[in-house]
């Protein structure tokens, strides 16, 4: 699992590469919270184009980041999930609070 970021104006794009499950969640959680803390973005986009797999641990992870960002009034979006991940997110109902960026 690799995480990289790109700051475009004040928009923080977080690129997830690999498989997001329980075995990696804690490590990337700290990493991403640090990025957000350091960059003070006005908007955060979780870019999933290179994410190959995600299970419900990923839902907990996304919700956790969403709650932190919401307390700072920073909106969050999801970009380019593959069909497997899209299905997991749809079941969770997450898109109603964290929209898919088209």
């Amino acid at each position, binding site marked *: 699992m690799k995480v990289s970021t790109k700051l475009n104006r004040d928009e923080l794009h977080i690129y997830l590469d690999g498989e997001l499950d*329980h*075995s990696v969640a804690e490590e990337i*959680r700290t990493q991403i919270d640090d990025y957000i803390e350091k960059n003070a973005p006005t908007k955060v986009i979780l870019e999933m184009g290179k994410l190959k*797999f995600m*299970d*419900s641990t990923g839902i*907990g992870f996304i*919700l956790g980041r969403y709650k932190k960002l919401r307390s700072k009034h920073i909106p969050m979006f999801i970009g380019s999930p593959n069909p*497997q991940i899209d299905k997991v997110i749809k*079941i969770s109902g997450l898109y109603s609070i964290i929209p898919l960026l088209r």
Partner: protein
Amino acid sequence: MTNYMTLRVKAVPINESFVRGVVAGFTVPCDPTIDVINDVRTAVSEAVTNCVVHAYSGSGEGDILIEGVLNDNLLTISVSDYGKGIDNVEKAMEDFFTTKESEERSGLGFTIMKSFMDSLKVVSEKGAGTTVTMTKKLTDVEH
């Protein structure tokens, strides 16, 4: 196609991806679509993660037993642990119910197993362990 498999692994996080990969590979001879393989992979990942996180409370001490059977195009997969057991199975299966909110657990593991597979059965005994049994028809074609 008739086949079976047994796999016993240590309840450590790294085995979550190992087991879902093995079970996905086990289905391949039945020629399921990518979507079906992904449903199986996701459901198995949930079951194994539950063992690691809940049955053994993340200690890494304990075994997970995975048994798979292919009977024509029907996959039956069971995931067992010998951990602490589930207090209230009915409650545990409710959407968004989790005992580990502080660890950012979503409470959707069983929801996903249930909706990605054709059937789900959970048998748990306090102090003895839990067995989750799931089935899924892998293809529409009768072999």
